[in-house]
């Protein structure tokens, strides 16, 4: 009798196997997506390497074109530090075009805050980060380009 039932429902076994494999795959994918983290920017290849002033000029000339080219890309920017903006748990570094007031600003990845704190105004450095794009600031009446998850290039 039991033998007859097994023969009658061979598809049941395949449905259970397929369902089980699908469930395991779904759990693995969800776990992967939930635990995904950004790579260390220091170990990520730059899409572009630019000088701070040339970079700012590209945004001032045509910011929609520059945004298309650079936004969400990893960029290494070379320039002189004009401002350090330390706060309780963070530090931002700024490279400003003193004639127009436009600037590039870098917020750092947690693991690179200590090396950013070692820098001083006037230092010539290369900083690599994820470009958030450029916008015009009505408050400052100046163009600004912001970076997140930055690292000092050694």
């Amino acid at each position, binding site marked *: 009798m039991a033998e007859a039932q097994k023969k009658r429902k061979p598809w049941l076994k395949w449905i259970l196997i397929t369902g089980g494999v699908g469930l395991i795959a779904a759990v693995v994918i969800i776990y992967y997506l939930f635990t*995904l*983290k950004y790579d260390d920017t220091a170990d990520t290849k730059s899409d572009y390497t630019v000088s701070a002033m040339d970079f700012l000029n590209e945004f001032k000339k045509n910011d929609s074109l520059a945004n298309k080219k650079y936004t969400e890309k990893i960029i290494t920017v070379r320039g002189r530090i004009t401002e350090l903006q330390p706060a309780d748990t*963070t530090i931002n570094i700024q490279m400003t075009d003193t004639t127009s007031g436009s600037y590039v*600003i870098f*917020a750092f990845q947690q693991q690179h805050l200590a090396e950013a704190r070692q820098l001083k105004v006037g230092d010539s450095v290369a900083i690599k980060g994820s470009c958030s794009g450029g916008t015009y600031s*009505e408050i400052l009446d100046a163009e600004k380009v*912001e970076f997140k998850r930055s690292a000092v290039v050694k």
Partner: protein
Amino acid sequence: MKKTILFLSLVVMAGATFAQKKKTTTSATISFDATTKLDALPKGDNKTVVASIDPKSGAVAFEAQVKSFSFANPKMQEHFNSSTWMDSDKFPTATFKGKISNLSEVKLGTDGAYTATITGDLTLHGVTKPLSTTAKITVAGGVITTAADFSIKLADYGVAGPAIGAGKVNTDPNITVAASFK
């Protein structure tokens, strides 16, 4: 004696003039927490917010580039900027323009700790709505430090994606704002 009094008067006047100048920062911080029991990922911060405070008029303004919000999880950041959530390609900046409505009680030129009521308009996702919140303001040696904590309703700003409907994103996220004006 007269010269001393004149000199001290000039120092006080110069100090008052300095205290009344509009102050700005390019490094204000806005943190955003929309976590729920189902999802601990919708949580990020923007550390490069432009802000200003005018001690004379009590005017306060903030400009936050949406793409500058940084999340630990790349997928979360992608969702946050997508057309189903903040649509940052279309609405690249969130702004607040307002003023301290109890300026007579908040002495921005005098060292001390104050509780300010800030009222103004928040523009997010292309929608402008009035916003009122309290902020803690500390003045020390000419540095004005502000901190505010409030929540908004995403639906008020036309933000309603599938993840929000599914309960994975808090419909009333908590927003923390901090700025130091030197």
